[in-house]
């Protein structure tokens, strides 16, 4: 297995705040990586740097060995890196099906995009199939703004899947939703992973990441301090020192 995604010495500060301080991590193709760390340790900023929303001050991001550090979000997505947001972001006034069609990727010039319809029959069928996959088929014609928080999480996962990304970065997929639905999301991730999709997951729910991930990376103060199999990471003294003190707190506000 090769490194699909490699983050090397990424730094980013916002004013006087050093959000990332030389952070490095790797993600193997076909694996499920977990990214944990106390609140404010830079996990979401790292996602933003990788997906092109935030420009890093220093360091490189490699995707399949090629640098994508300066790529814009639309370029990053078209290369095959999808993501979801911690606070779900859907298109509230579009219908659920229209949300699904936004991400449909096509190689076409601007003129064709103006002339051609929103989606071909095949693209619609694929979108409906993915809505079925996350259990939202019945709601296809409703405005996405009427969905509940958990449904929005599922929709956000589903519309990223439309483009069949190689790797998906999930920002707290289990945050703020009920335990049954957490199980659903876990099952979907496992199934997609079996079909070849790589995942990198930020999550505060330790049970969720411990059971799901092949490798865990722990971040603290903008650096990746430990990386390894979950069983090793959970007993590492550095992790206990940096992280476990705040587990209670994370559980309180998270679930």
């Amino acid at each position: 297995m090769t490194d699909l995604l490699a983050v090397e010495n990424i730094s980013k500060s916002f004013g006087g705040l050093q959000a990332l301080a030389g952070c490095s991590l790797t993600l193997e193709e076909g694996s499920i990586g977990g990214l944990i760390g106390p609140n404010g340790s830079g996990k979401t900023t790292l996602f933003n740097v990788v997906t092109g929303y935030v420009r890093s001050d220093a360091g490189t991001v490699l995707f399949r060995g090629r640098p994508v550090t300066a790529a814009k979000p639309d370029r990053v997505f078209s290369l095959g890196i999808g993501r979801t947001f911690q606070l779900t972001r859907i298109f509230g006034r579009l219908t659920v099906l229209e949300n699904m069609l936004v991400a449909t990727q096509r190689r076409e010039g601007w003129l064709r995009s103006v002339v051609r319809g929103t989606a071909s029959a095949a693209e619609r069928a694929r979108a409906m199939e993915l809505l079925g996959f996350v259990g939202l088929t019945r709601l296809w014609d409703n405005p996405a703004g009427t969905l509940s928080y958990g449904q929005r999480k599922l929709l956000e996962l589903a519309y990223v899947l439309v483009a069949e990304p190689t790797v998906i970065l999930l920002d707290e997929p289990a945050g703020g939703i009920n335990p049954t639905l957490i199980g659903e999301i876990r099952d979907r991730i496992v199934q997609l992973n079996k079909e070849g999709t790589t995942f990198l997951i930020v999550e505060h729910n330790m049970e969720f990441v411990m059971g799901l991930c092949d490798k865990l990376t722990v971040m603290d103060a903008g650096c990746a301090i430990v990386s390894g199999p979950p069983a090793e990471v959970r007993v590492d003294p550095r992790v206990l020192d940096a992280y476990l003190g705040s587990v209670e707190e994370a559980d309180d506000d998270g679930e």
Partner: protein
Amino acid sequence: MSGATAEVEPAVPLGVGQNATVRRVGIGVWTVVLVLLALFPLVVTNPTYTSIGVFTLIFMACANAWNGFSGYSGYISLGNGVFYGTGAYVLTYAALRLNMSGGWGVFWLVPLAGIGAAVVAVPFGFVALRVRRHTFVVITIAIFFVFQLLAFNLSFTGGSSGLTPPTPNWVGATFNDPFYYVAFAVLVFSILLFWGVRRSRFGLHLLAIRDDEDRARGLGVKVLRVKMIGFVLAALVTGMGGAIFAYFVGQIFPQFAYDPVFDVTVALMSFFGGIGTLSGPLLGALLLEPIEQYLTIQYSIGSVYLIIYGVLFLLVIIFMPRGLVPSIGDGMRRIRVNRTQQSAPRAAGPPVEPSRPEVPAIADGGQ
């Protein structure tokens, strides 16, 4: 699956395919309205009223174009007067340079004027479309006044004395009719264009930008390109409207071609009718422009309509904040829901799942 199914219980069950039904009703209504508009000069021959008709058609086309970019994308432009004025000047300047005499021939310059305005929209958009929301509004106003100032000061625009396009020697009784039908053609073009945009993939991207531009970027939408195309298309139609206006009124001045009231009017008509809907801006212009023209002619005070506008606008904002068309749609839906609730037997058991097709009927023609 069971967990997700339990979770997905919508608060208000909405009918399947209701969007398709609404769309079909809309197409029917607008076909009738367009036929009536086409017949209007045959029935009403009074030049006072056909003149009102010409302005109404121009504003319907321009309000629709405004909505086709600003309404869909959420980028509220108060600078569309730039395109209207540019269209007016391009037609007049070209007709004078080509030594054209008044007649049907001048109308061939209308598409050229549209293209002229579209060309202007490229640098305008390149500057303005980099910023969002309030900043975008302010920048469009600023750029608008830059153009008005240029029209006052450049040599080929005739400065403050303006330009006079050639006057056709048509007889007074039917003088307005050619303008009316050309404006009608531009209106039909505008409707078809932005109806097509709404159904296209590019149109979906405009709507996605309105709801969450950054999220759309992260799903592969090339946002600047999409916004630019929308802006240029709006300019194309608005420039054609301005060209007909210039030829019709027969004299253009910088302050009337690049008219700040135009900027506000097209936006107001769209808000009034329902921003972002296909019918709303058309309805807004169809209702408001005749009122404006009638009041101007009747009381020969050019600004009475501004007061009427203000009052109407306040009423709509207070009672129908989303505009006429969405409010009418909501009302119809409520009536339908009440009716189905009354006709359905009130069973005490769990609510019966309404039957829904598994795959959506492809209502807005896939390809």
